[in-house]
């Protein structure tokens, strides 16, 4: 097998890691807010968060171009304030990855929080403990295995993002060429060997992630046990 330029791997990892950091923080905050508050329009807001799950990637890409394009409202702001462009850059790929993986992570975190028995939080409250400390020491650790599974799922989804990435970041070898794009354009060019190389790489990453999550969940289940 030929030795290929590995830049798509490093770029995919960079895009996925940076987007997952934001996904992690935003989904935790959103899920925490949604489990604790009831308000008018909550269902609508939840539908908006989950919308990328059911939309074709091209629609997401189109929406991102409208928002972050050179003439888009957020695109103009980012260029004026921070001097960088989103379209045709790896940042565009990271934003696309963020948008498609957020709903998956949000759903996992919400389910994980809902599994934490509210009596544990209430008993901690009766002991005079602050809400923040309850979150840090009770809610988060007890929801952690579900959160971690969500993280891996969202990370895998982010690394595999293709349609929206292609629309907003385009295909510029060495700059916006993530693994899925590399596979598609290698196939288009008839370079099946190169396409297969990247298919094997991305599949191995997926298998490793799922195996690790399963191992970790078993390990933490044994450690925490059931009351």
């Amino acid at each position: 097998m030929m030795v290929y330029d590995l830049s798509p791997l490093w770029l995919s990892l960079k895009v996925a890691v940076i987007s997952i950091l934001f996904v992690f923080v935003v989904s935790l905050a959103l899920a925490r807010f949604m489990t604790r508050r009831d308000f008018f329009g909550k269902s609508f807001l939840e539908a908006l968060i989950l919308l990328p799950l059911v939309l074709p990637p091209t629609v997401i890409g189109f929406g991102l171009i409208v928002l972050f394009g050179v003439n888009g409202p957020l695109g103009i702001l980012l260029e004026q304030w921070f001097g960088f462009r989103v379209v045709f850059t790896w940042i565009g790929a990271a934003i696309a990855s963020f948008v498609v993986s957020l709903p998956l992570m949000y759903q996992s975190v919400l389910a994980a929080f809902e599994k934490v028995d509210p009596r544990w939080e209430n008993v901690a409250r009766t002991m005079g403990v602050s809400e923040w400390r309850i979150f840090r020491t009770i809610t988060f650790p007890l929801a952690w295995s579900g959160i971690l599974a969500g993280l891996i799922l969202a990370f895998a989804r982010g690394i595999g993002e293709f349609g929206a990435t292609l629309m907003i970041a385009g295909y510029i070898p060495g700059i916006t060429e993530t693994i899925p794009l590399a596979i598609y354009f290698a196939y288009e060019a008839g370079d099946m060997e190169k396409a297969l190389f990247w298919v094997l790489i991305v599949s191995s990453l997926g298998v490793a992630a799922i195996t690790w999550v399963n191992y970790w969940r078993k390990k933490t289940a044994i450690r925490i046990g059931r009351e």
Partner: protein
Amino acid sequence: MLQVDFKKQLDHFSLTMQFRLDKEILALVGSSGSGKTTLLNCIAGIVHPDVGEISLNGRTFYSEEQKPLKIQKRKVGYLFQDYALFPHLTAEENILYAVPKGSNIAHITELTKILGITGLLGKYPHQISGGEKQRVALTRSLAAQPDILLLDEPFSALDDANRDWCQNELLRIHEQWQIPIIFVTHRIADAEKLADRIMRIEKGQMTEETAR
């Protein structure tokens, strides 16, 4: 002195409570779903009444005129049904969860000795029996030195020998701590043995109050 005088609408009836409690033990008896746990939850601040007032030693927990006092500020020891021990913490970490580092824990050390749980402190909740969990949870609810103790069916998971022993210890703790204790039970024998007063709640109404 605990003063309770409130109404709360539940699914099928209205819970109407009016009583005062000094440093006594009050047993709540009555069929399931009659409002006993809701009364404990209203005192603890987990749910709020619709109208009325709850206060303890002059501190208002709930009143229509002001915002309810936060659960954290009520100084209530609450032993939940099934104990609700934190499953990822050891017995010791459960007990000391809310105790600031470096504070005097002589009363806790004494409780662990009285209740015979010194040997369990390093174990996780899933590694100990129902009776042991109950004693760990009781110690935990007393660790923060509460002004009132609420116990929701504390003896339901215990066999006869353990129940007797735990009840005697509870009486000893009450004698020493001198705080009001309210406990929910289905067994009238438990109520008669432990309580200074027994209150029967049926469909949200207090129907009977007997002195020991």
